[in-house]
């Protein structure tokens, strides 16, 4: 699904993902985690990935929900980035810096997070707590 940086597009994809999770019986805690990860990844894609590019460029969002797992990917059209270059926002010297927490939150709430290719595509997996996966 292509998502533009407008609230109606973001809410449409969010509603689709959360409804699919609800149908599969994921609890509120899990839906909170996915909503946060999706919001943070979209903000990163539009604000950083598409920085200096046409503001109307969409990002590609794909997701798959099964009873035990959610897979979510977000791909922007920017030059990509190296996640290891992002400073650790939890260090004392960065605690009062107002930006740079999105990646940390995504990593904390998801089971696994991978940056693909030049770093313009993020693939995340969320395993349902307590489920036997594999």
């Amino acid at each position, binding site marked *: 699904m292509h998502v533009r940086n407008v609230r109606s597009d973001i809410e449409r994809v969010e509603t689709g993902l959360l409804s699919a999770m609800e149908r599969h019986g994921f609890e509120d805690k899990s839906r*909170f985690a996915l909503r946060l990860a999706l*919001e943070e990844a979209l*903000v990163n894609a539009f604000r950083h990935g598409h920085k200096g590019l046409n503001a109307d460029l969409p990002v590609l969002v794909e997701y798959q929900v099964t009873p035990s797992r959610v897979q979510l990917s977000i791909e922007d059209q920017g030059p990509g980035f190296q996640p290891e270059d992002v400073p650790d926002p939890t260090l004392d010297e960065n*605690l009062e810096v107002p930006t740079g927490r*999105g990646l940390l939150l995504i990593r904390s709430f998801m089971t696994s997070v991978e940056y693909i290719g030049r770093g313009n595509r993020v693939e995340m997996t969320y395993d349902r707590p307590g489920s036997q996966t594999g």
Partner: protein
Amino acid sequence: MSSGGSRLRVKKQDSVTVVEFIDRNILDEANIQQIGEEIAGIVESANAPKLLISFENVDHLSSAALGTLITINNKIKARQGQLRLANIDPQIFEVFKITKLDRLFQIHDTTDSAIKSLS
């Protein structure tokens, strides 16, 4: 979804300005910017402001909202004021813990306890 109206409920309790959010979800960047500007207006209109931000009714917030809280905290400190946060939902409190912002902010369970700490 952004409208011309305020995104905050503001009341004065003793010497403390208590701010509540109208939105349940503090995610939209335009709304977050408006919230930041409204609270900055409150902070900048007082010397040594005492501000309590209540998260009652808030279900979600993003890292951009955390950034705005940090900016507000910095403005309050610059004016020798004090900031308290209260009524944070356990899931959102987890976000503060992960980012270690529970160390930066003084967080109280209730508005009463936060107001007492400011008096």
